[in-house]
């Protein structure tokens, strides 16, 4: 993780690029203007692009509703939620208005909703949530969950280009810790998973911040001679089932890891697909690792047991390899 460009800076630069390249793009959200946003993901953009980076009132429902109307008129709004957790207040507009517009009327709804997601030490129940499964359950939405600096950049650019509503789940834990040497010139298209690490003994399917816990676990197990393949979903709606099945075909073993709550999470969906469509590929029961089924606790010591960690992934993998 050397190099200079952070995950957060990649998101900021991607927004700067789309603002520069496409006059239809504007940014709307709380404190995104001259302040540059709670996490500084829009720093300097209001100055660089006058009149196109607007502070909204403290109104998530109106923020999304305004974006939908602007999109109908041909714009490409990016809405920043201050934290993913607050998108519950804009939930109705997202799932019932943005998500249904194309199917009902044939008119596209090209909006991007940025959700600063996931847990951080001390974040607590209302500043730590991973909401991707909620939005993936509803029809009509694309849900992106970049886990690398390169994807944060290229997927944000693609999200704005896509004619459908995109829920862009960026992980707060990666904002400043994750760094890359350079921005990518090319990238996998949305909807395609990436082989983050090749292997042959077991497959870990994951995304977002958990990608790095999985890679760390794979590294540890490598010293014991195990070759763990890690698949980064990148987009969780749609899910690239083929790539997942391809990996399970190689390894015969599947562990799915997500920071979200277990019931109905990405893990449940991936395991259901592999079991239904790739039953014969499995040499062992598919396993999953999620956060605990409680609100995300405030205290760092509780939080680090609530979420899956590299150690937990490693333990689950060792168990899976024994099966």
């Amino acid at each position, binding site marked *: 993780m050397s190099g200079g460009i952070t995950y957060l800076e990649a998101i900021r630069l991607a927004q700067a690029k789309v603002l520069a390249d496409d006059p239809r793009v504007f940014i709307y959200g709380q404190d995104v203007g001259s302040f540059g946003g709670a996490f500084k993901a829009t720093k300097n953009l209001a100055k660089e692009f006058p009149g196109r980076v607007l502070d909204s*009132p403290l109104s998530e429902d109106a923020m999304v*509703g305004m*974006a939908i109307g602007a999109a109908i008129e041909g714009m490409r709004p990016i809405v920043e939620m201050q934290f993913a957790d607050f998108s519950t207040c804009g939930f109705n507009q997202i799932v*019932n208005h943005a998500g249904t517009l*194309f199917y009902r009327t044939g008119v596209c709804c090209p909006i991007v909703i940025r959700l600063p997601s996931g847990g951080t030490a001390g974040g607590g129940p209302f500043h730590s949530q991973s909401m991707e499964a909620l939005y993936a359950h509803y029809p009509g939405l694309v849900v992106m969950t970049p886990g690398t600096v390169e994807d944060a950049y290229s997927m944000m650019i693609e999200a704005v280009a896509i004619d459908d509503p995109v829920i862009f789940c960026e992980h707060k834990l990666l904002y400043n810790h994750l760094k890359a040497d350079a921005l990518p010139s090319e990238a996998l298209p949305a909807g395609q998973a990436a082989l983050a690490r090749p292997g042959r003994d077991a497959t870990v399917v994951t995304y977002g911040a958990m990608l790095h816990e999985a890679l760390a676990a794979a590294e540890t197990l490598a010293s014991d001679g195990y070759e763990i393949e890690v698949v980064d979903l990148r987009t969780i709606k*749609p899910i690239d089932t083929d790539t997942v099945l391809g990996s399970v075909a190689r390894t015969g073993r599947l562990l799915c890891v997500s920071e979200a709550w277990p019931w109905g999470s990405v893990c449940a969906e991936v395991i259901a697909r592999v079991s239904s469509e790739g039953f014969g590929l499995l040499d062992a029961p598919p396993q999953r690792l999620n956060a605990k089924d409680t609100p995300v606790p405030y205290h760092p010591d509780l939080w680090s047991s609530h979420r899956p960690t590299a150690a937990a992934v490693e333990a689950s993998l060792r168990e899976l390899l024994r099966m």
Partner: protein
Amino acid sequence: MPVVSGQTPILQEQFIKAFRVMLLARLLEDKLASLYRSGLIRGGVFLGKGQEALSVSVGINLNKSDIFAPLIRDQAGRLAFGDTVLDTLRTYLGSQLGSMRGRDGNIHRGRPREGYYAMISHLGAMIPAVSGALLARRMRGETGAVGATCLGDGATSTGAFHEGLNAAAVEKLPLVLVIANNQYAYSTPNTRQFACDDLLDKAIGYGVTGHRADGVDLESCLEVVGAAIQSAREGGGPQLVVAKLLRLVGHGEHDDAHYIDSAIKQSALGRDCVTVAEARILEEKWATAEDIESWKKSIHDEIETTTAKVRKEPTPDPNEEDWCAVSDTRLVDNSQS
């Protein structure tokens, strides 16, 4: 905040024009009601009987380049804005050729590309959408357009109403919000819906201009709504129009509306705006009873012919359906359901 009372003298032409749209809406809704009773319309049928004067005044005062997001009781406003008997019947009867292709129905129809928005059921939700559209127009440097949307008394209790109107006021957008206070939200009376003396009292709290119209008097509606749309167009920011009236039908055709206080029915609010307008026309000698009869006759014929035509049209074929909720086919989720 002063209640603006319009200045423009109502022209005979506008009154007659509006009245004929009201007649069209009324007779079309009568037809929808009978189609519903005979089981030819599936799902709910929600009519605007008694609210035509207010509704038509919105649609008729808008230009084609404006934006209109009608709500439940706006058959008249829809027709005035350019919706047709044909597409109305196609949508209610589920014709494959209707603008919603059977995917959505009845009051949820629209043609967003033409500025005629298709409401979602969740009340209040169209306010920020129209506002965002107006924001987009302004960003592109397009001026002179306004956006109008209608609302009931009950919908003023939604968070969406509050957030949407406030955000529009902060941006000083040319939004015209027309509230038809028909005294009830389904069965719930005003007394259980809000505690202010008058919904117009909300205007000052949003920093928007308030206008009061008499919902059963077409002249008042045309004048007040026209003035509100004019001020929005001239840069006066959001305009809130409130009119008291009564719906003269059930909440939906399944509802007998027994809960409506008979005292209100007997009151001035209970008058039928179509009858009142018709009387006015005769009194002013703007048209004769025979004229009006002939108008009704031709409207009746149009509705009947169109109904017959639409009933022969194909309904959506599930086997032809692509079952695709996103426009980008690369992004269709391939889970087997």
